[in-house]
């Protein structure tokens, strides 16, 4: 029994950790700007592509920091060019702009790669094969959750104990008031985007080392799932997003193996194709939480303003 379910759990925890790193970007941006940054998943994909090209041109020890810097720069630029001019516009306009950026990034990736699958470079050590609890897997699978938790703890410390962190909390509490209090809104927002894309870049390295193929649409589904994780955990709450992401990762992995688990169990005798719902189940979770607890697991209650 254990032997059957364990591989799914480990793979689920690993995927969950990768989603968590993306989800933080969503939840922080939403907390401050009330914007679903649809382009975030595509930034994640672009980070993967940049790594493919960077690794072909230089050693990994240079490529990894360079890709992280470039990704952060990309996130920063997107905010500057596509979101800042629309700061006073209706929320729908900003969301449409985010969809436009996502469309642009995907098409750009399509053009550059020629629409072909790009093989992600093997990062030594973390992509090695290891045996854990009698199960063969790659080292990255084991490392991901620990690295994720470590980064999240750092982030929470940053938010709770530094000046910029305090400013972020203030802005997310009330945009206008914090502006009046002398907080430089623009730099706070830029900082948010920088942190969010930094984590997405790290997440992309873990994700693509684990699943080594980058296509223009690679970011779309992980992006959506990470956003759902953020909503599920309570949008604006960082621990919420992380826990949400782990739940979604594990659920997804278990559903993919559910047919097999049930067959080995003896509950059913033939495949019933439940794996079809591995993506859809994420959205079922989303709708359940939206209908019954719209603020998510850990979200704060907000009152609707007229």
């Amino acid at each position, binding site marked *: 029994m254990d032997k*059957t379910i364990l*591989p*799914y759990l480990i*793979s689920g925890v690993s*995927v969950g950790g990768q989603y968590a790193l993306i989800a933080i970007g969503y939840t922080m941006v939403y907390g401050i700007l009330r914007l679903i940054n649809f382009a975030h998943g595509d930034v994640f994909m672009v980070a993967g592509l940049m790594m493919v090209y960077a690794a072909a041109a230089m050693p990994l020890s240079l490529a990894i920091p360079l890709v992280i810097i470039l990704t952060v720069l990309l996130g920063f630029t997107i905010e500057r060019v596509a979101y800042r001019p629309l700061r006073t516009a209706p929320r729908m306009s900003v969301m449409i702009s985010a969809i436009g950026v996502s469309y642009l990034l995907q098409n750009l990736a*399509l053009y550059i790669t*020629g*629409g*072909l*699958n790009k*093989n992600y470079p093997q990062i030594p050590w973390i*992509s090695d*094969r290891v045996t854990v609890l009698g199960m*063969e*897997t*790659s080292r990255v*699978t084991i490392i991901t959750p620990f690295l994720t938790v470590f980064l999240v703890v750092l982030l929470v410390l940053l938010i709770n104990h530094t000046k910029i962190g305090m400013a972020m909390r203030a802005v997310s509490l009330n945009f206008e008031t914090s502006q009046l209090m002398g907080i430089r809104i623009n730099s706070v927002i830029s900082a948010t985007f920088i942190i969010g894309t930094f984590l997405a870049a790290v997440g992309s390295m873990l*994700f693509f080392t*684990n*699943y*080594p*193929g980058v*296509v223009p*649409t*690679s970011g*779309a*589904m992980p992006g959506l799932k990470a956003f759902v994780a953020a909503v599920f955990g309570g949008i604006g709450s960082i621990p919420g997003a992380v826990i949400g992401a782990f739940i979604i990762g594990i659920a997804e*992995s278990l559903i*993919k*193996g559910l*047919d*097999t*688990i049930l*067959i*080995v169990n003896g509950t059913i005798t033939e*495949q019933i*194709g439940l*794996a*079809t719902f*591995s*993506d859809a189940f994420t959205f079922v979770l989303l709708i359940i939480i939206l209908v019954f607890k719209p603020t998510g697991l850990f979200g704060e209650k907000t009152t609707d303003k007229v």
Partner: protein
Amino acid sequence: MKKILAVALVLCLVLAVAPMAFADNPVVKIGVFEPQSGDNGAGGKQEILGMQYANQLTPTVDIDGTTYDVELVYADNASANDKAPTAAQSLISSGVSLVLGSYGSGVSIAAGDTFAAAEVPAIGVTCTNPQVTSECEVYFRICFLDPFQGTVLANFAKSELGATKAYCLAKQGDDYSGGLCNYFIDAFGKDACVYEQFPEGTSDFSTYITNAQNQGCDVFFSPVSTEAAAQIIAKADTQALGMPILAGDTWDSNVILNAAKGKDLKICVTTFYQEGADPDFDKGIKEWIKNDTTALANNGGNDELAAVTVMGFDAYYVALEALKAAGSVDPADVLETLPSLEYTGVTGKIAFDDIGDALRDSAFVKTCNTETGAWDFVTVATVG
């Protein structure tokens, strides 16, 4: 702003439509309906290579006493069934006499109706699903079919690999892998197979490999696109799959060889051509690929020959034969001559049966040598 936009758009329209080419000989156009992006982009590009090489060797054709220059007209069907009809239409509108392609069955099935409506004949190169020709009057093909290939693979799994329980993995909504798995299961026995489909955009194949291991299968059959194949191979290695992987003709590609090199895996495929069957041809095309940087890039960076490239090569000559026999560049005349056409190419004799399928009764089985990174010949398989 709006006026400028309008003027600019009209300009685009006029210039795009204006014809450019003035050649000495009259031109006959052959449409190349292949994926150049998406899941099957890499395979489509390899198939095109064969046609380009053939076109370079034989750039003209004599039709009814006149020498025509052959021009290949390309349309990218993007491996997507919804893009296929429009891509097909763009070929038809550019005045092609006949069409070659595609790699991947779904796009050919989807575009069949468009070709039929315009009565432009199409010759499938490596689309192996029966539906390509069965529902379409104008579609022919030069490759074998999935019921045949599935049976060959199932027999091979049973007798050569000694498998008793097979894990079959197809991509959801993909007619090639879905069809092939289906015929494999028919031949292998429904109760001895575990059949799963992964959704589009899946990158995590580790759970499917765990599923195969957990259900005690002893052969892993996954005739999916090369893109997914590379990921399956990577995961199969890290998770110590412990059973041979079996696949169809799409896997006969250097993408697989590159992915499998140095790994502890056994991979077997069925295919149309084994390198060495025609050494002169092999030498010529390898020389050409090596010296043409674009061709080299499209072939994945080395000169390892894919069977689909050879099939593309043969398809081009079948097209020329059809044009010669028709004695005209009119699609309707070409369509009329196709059923009775015969041609012996590099991959063997090509002739069509009454619904337009190729009369082929043998397939090559190859296995991947993970040390040298090349294909080793295993056997020629037929179904008795």
